[in-house]
């Protein structure tokens, strides 16, 4: 009994400490998960696939790869290229980050690069729009997010005909890092085997995204 009395103060303090930690509110900073879904940047909200996942859609070049080709020609009335995304997160934050349009043009090959940055300034890789003359370079555009998917759309460029002196007008859109995962679209090999590369897809439908990335971190 005497031992119990001697240890009682320490026991009480320890119990209080544990109880306090167990019931603490952790609202100031917490683990945070966000998802960004990137969609085909064609001028129209319907898009037609030209070539499945590939690097260059010719010759013996790889029959799988980081990008897809989409119809996007001024003969269809417009040839603008757009960033399109839906983003959702588990903290109901209003923004997932921001995108800077960069000019990746060299020689006669035009490229608009959309570089995603977190609110802290951490680089989260890029989506590249090839055969595209960039528009609005340098500035940052906020990527809307929320507990339900929030959309963002803005122009990043214009499709260039005869790009690199050889490519007919189309949009080649690709990831620059495997941190972006690829969606269900067929590979170039599957397309050339006749496994369905034709027909329109509605890019207003969430499940028709092209690339997706997730990031886990702390946030406010």
């Amino acid at each position, binding site marked *: 009994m005497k031992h119990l009395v001697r240890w009682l103060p320490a026991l009480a303090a320890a119990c209080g400490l544990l109880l306090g930690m167990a019931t603490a509110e952790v609202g100031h900073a917490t683990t945070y998960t966000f998802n960004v879904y990137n969609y085909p940047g064609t001028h129209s909200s319907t898009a037609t696939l030209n070539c499945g996942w590939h690097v260059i859609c*010719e010759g013996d070049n790889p029959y799988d790869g980081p990008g897809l080709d989409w119809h996007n020609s001024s003969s269809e009335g417009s040839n603008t290229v757009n960033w399109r995304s839906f983003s959702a997160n588990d903290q109901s934050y209003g923004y997932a980050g921001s995108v800077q349009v960069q000019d990746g043009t060299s020689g006669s090959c035009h490229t608009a690069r959309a570089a995603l940055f977190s609110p*802290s300034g951490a680089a989260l890789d890029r989506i590249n729009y090839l055969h595209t003359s960039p528009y609005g*370079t340098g500035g940052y555009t906020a990527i809307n997010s929320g507990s339900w998917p929030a959309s963002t759309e803005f122009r990043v460029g214009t499709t260039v005909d005869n790009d690199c002196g050889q490519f007919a007008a189309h949009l080649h859109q690709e990831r620059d890092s495997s941190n972006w995962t690829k969606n269900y679209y067929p590979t170039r090999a599957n397309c050339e085997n006749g496994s369905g590369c034709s027909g329109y897809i509605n890019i207003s439908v969430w499940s028709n995204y092209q690339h997706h990335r997730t990031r886990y971190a702390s946030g406010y």
Partner: protein
Amino acid sequence: MRLPDLNHWKRRNSRIAVVFIAVLALGAGGFVAGRHLASAPAEAGNPASPLDLGTISGSDATPPGPDVTPVPGSTPDTTKPFWFIPYANAERDAPKFHGTLNGIEFGAQSGALPACAKPATPDDWKKAVAGTFYDLKLDSLPDGVEPREFARVGKCADDGRPIWIIAEVHLEGITGVNNGGGSIQISRWEAVRWYPQEFPPERFSTGTIAGRPAVFADSFLPVIGVAAVVVSDAENGGSTMLLGNAVSVDVLKQVAEALYK
């Protein structure tokens, strides 16, 4: 019969009460300390320097608009969400250099291209560049640089010679690279010594890479935005450009040197 000692009971009860209150106070103190410990901010960025970008990935803070620029002379506060955007806005609005440095023209929309009537794509890009000046030796780049498994190559169908190559490499976990990673687009062109990329004049400097004339363009903030290194090549009368995203110009110089070894 002996009556109980009432004073003894009083003394004992008051001692118990004091102990009870002390125990309660210790418990309450522990409770408060526990809540404080558990609710302390978890890895809120802790920027030790302007380069330490932290890990804040989401925010309810509204990003600064396109017209917001930093207070002149202010130091970036990297603890604030979207702290870099005013600096990017100022950079975007700053007057740009259009002209030629070390034989390379910047801010140009057109210029000399490879002399070729029929530009084309080789069937196998690795075979097309093997043993030529366009074989960039992407496997011998400095540690921390991860080459992608492919590049794009253009050839001239007139004679089959390669006339350009564009490749991408990813970088992570090295000094001078954003803590989210970075990337470099490497392009080498025959006859091309002009680029549309624009930077304010104060971002430019000149020097050499592997003994060749070169131009360096630094980004507006270390490891945020775009930096570039362009090297003038005698072999094809053209140039090699390294265009970095979230990579410092010093890292670009190291990678450029490795391309010529």
